[in-house]
C-alpha cells in the first residue's frame, strides 16, 4: 500500500529506461517531440495543399 499522493505524480517508467543521457529528461520526451513535429509538418502541408488548389 502506498500513500494516495503517490499515484498522483508522474509515474517513473519502471518498465522502461527512465531517462535519457540528459539528466531529468525522460526518454520518451524525444518521441513526443517528434510526434508533435510530425503534426506541425502535417498542418503546414495541409495548409499548403488547401491554398495551392484553392
Amino acid at each position: 500500500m502506498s500513500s494516495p499522493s503517490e499515484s498522483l505524480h508522474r509515474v517513473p517508467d519502471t518498465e522502461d529506461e527512465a531517462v535519457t543521457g540528459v539528466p531529468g529528461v525522460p526518454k520518451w520526451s524525444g518521441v513526443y517531440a517528434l510526434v508533435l513535429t510530425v503534426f506541425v509538418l502535417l498542418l503546414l502541408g495541409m495548409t499548403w495543399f488547401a491554398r495551392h488548389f484553392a
Partner: protein
Amino acid sequence: MTALDYLVLFGTIISIAAYGVWATRSGGGLETYLKGDQRIGWGTIGLSVMATQASAITFLSTPGQGYESGMGFVQNYFGMPLALIIVAGVFLPIYRRLKVYTAYEYLGKRFDGKTRLLGAAFFFLQRGLAAGITIYAPAIIVSSVLNWPLGVTVLGTGILVVVYTVTGGSEAVSLTQRYQMAVILIGMGIAFVVVLAKMPANVSTGDALAVAGAMGKLEAVNWEFDINERYTVWSGIFGGLFLSLSYFGADQSQVQRYLTGRSLRESRMGLMFNAVLKIPMQFFILLLGALVFVFYQFERPPVFFNEAVWENQRQSEQGAEFAAIDEAFVEAHAVKEAAVSTWLAARASSDPAAESAARSAMTAAQMRTEDVREQARTALAAADTEIKASDSDYVFITFVLDHLPHGLVGLLIAVIFCAALSSTASELNALGATTAVDFYRHVFNPGADDAHSLAASKWFTAMWGVVAIAFALFANLVENLIEAVNILGSIFYGTVLGLFLVAFFLKHVRGTAVFWGGIIAQTLVIVFFFNLEISYLWYNFIGCAMCVCFSLMAQLILPGRNGGQATA
C-alpha cells in the same frame, strides 16, 4: 454483386473471425481473457486502437463528407496527437503500474467504490447504446443498396462478432482487428487508385485535384478563429483535445486495447502509431471523397444517392414530380460537365481572363446541380417525413457498386463489415469486462475467484452482444437517434474526463468530493443541454471544467470526509 464478390466478402470476414477463434483456442485465465496476457506488440495495438475508433460508418460517411462538404472535417482530429501523448505519458503508466483491468478500477483505487461505479455507469450509458448503433448503421445502408433483409444483415454481423469476442476475449479482438484493419487500408487504397484510374483520359491527377480545389472541396485547413464555424484549426485542436483525452484515456473500449501491450513501451508505441497516422488516414479518406466528386463531374451520378428510396417515390403517385426532377438533373449535369471541361481547357491555355470566366461558369453550373439536388431532398421529405433526406452516407457505396470491378466490390463491402465488426468487438469486450470487474466482482460477488470471474466476463460479453443486436433489430433507428447517441457521448465524456483529471493532478481531492463534484457537473451539463443553444461538442470541455471546479469546492466544504482511502 456477383458470386466472386460474395466469395471475397464472406471469405474475408469469416476467415478473419475464424482465425480469431482458432488463435485463442487455448483459453487461459481472467488476465488472458481481459488483457490478452499482456503479450501484444505495438503494431497490433496501434491497428487495434485505430480499428476501434474507425467504425463502418467512418468508411461510409467520411468519403461522403469529402464529396458533399470538402475536407474541413479532418480538423476534427487535430487535438488527437497531443491527447495521445498525454494518455501515453500520464494515464497509461498509472494503469499499468496499478495492474487494473478497467479504467474505472483505477478510480476505485484512487478514490473509492462509489466513484468507480459512477465512472463505469457513465461508460455504460454511452457505449451500451453505441454498440447497437455500430451494428445497425452500416447494416441499414448495405441492406438498402444490396436489397438484403435488414434483420439478416444485423443478425449475421451481430452473431459473428459475439462468437469470437466471447470465445477469444481481448486477444481475439486485437488479433482480428489487425487483419480487419489491414483489409480496410488495402481496400481504401485500391478504391483511391481506381477512382484516379476511372477519370477521363484527358484529365490528369493534377487536373482532378484542380477541379476539386476550384469547387471548394480541398479546403482542409481553416485558420480563422470563428466559434460559429464548425471546423477550424482552433476548434479541432482545443475541442478535439478534450474529446480525444476522454475517449482514449477514460473510455474502456480504448483503454482495454492498449492495456494488452507486452510492455509500457509497446503500449506507448501503439498510441504514438495513431498519433502520427490517424490524421493522414482521415485526410486520404476525405480526399477519396473529393476525388469521387470529381469523377462524378464527368459521369452523371444519381440525383439522390439512396437510389432505392428515390426509385420507390418514382413509382408512387407523385412519380411525375420525381421524374421531372430527374430530367432537370440530367440537363444540369450535362451543362456542368461541359463547363468543367471548358475550365480545364482555359486553365491549360494560361489565359487568366478566360480561366476566370470559365471558373465562374463552372461554379454557376455546380450551384444549379446543387439546387436540383436540394429540390430532390425537399420532394422526398414532403413525400414521406420518415425518409432521411441526407444521402451523403450512400455516395461512396454507390460509387463502389457501380464503378469498381467485380471482386473488388466484394472487398470494399468486406471493408465496411470489417470496420463494423472491429469497433463492435471492442465495445462488447469493454462492456463485458466493466460489468464483470466493476459491478459483478466489486459489488455483488467480491469473493469470486478468477475462474468464476472469467465465466462471468464471457456471459456479460454475450449479454451485451444480445442487447446490441436487439437494439439494432427492434429500435426504429433513424438519423436523429444516431445523432442522439453522439450527443449522449459528448454529454457524459466531459464529466468522466474531469473525474480522471482530478484523480491524476489534484492530489488533495478525495473520493466524496470528486463524486459529488461529478454528480453536480453532470446534472448541470444536462440542464444546460436542455436550456442553452450550444454546440454539443462544447460539453466535453464544459463538463470537464465543471467537474474539476466542483470537486475542488466540495473538497473545501467537506473537510475530513475523504470518502475512502486510496489503495494504490
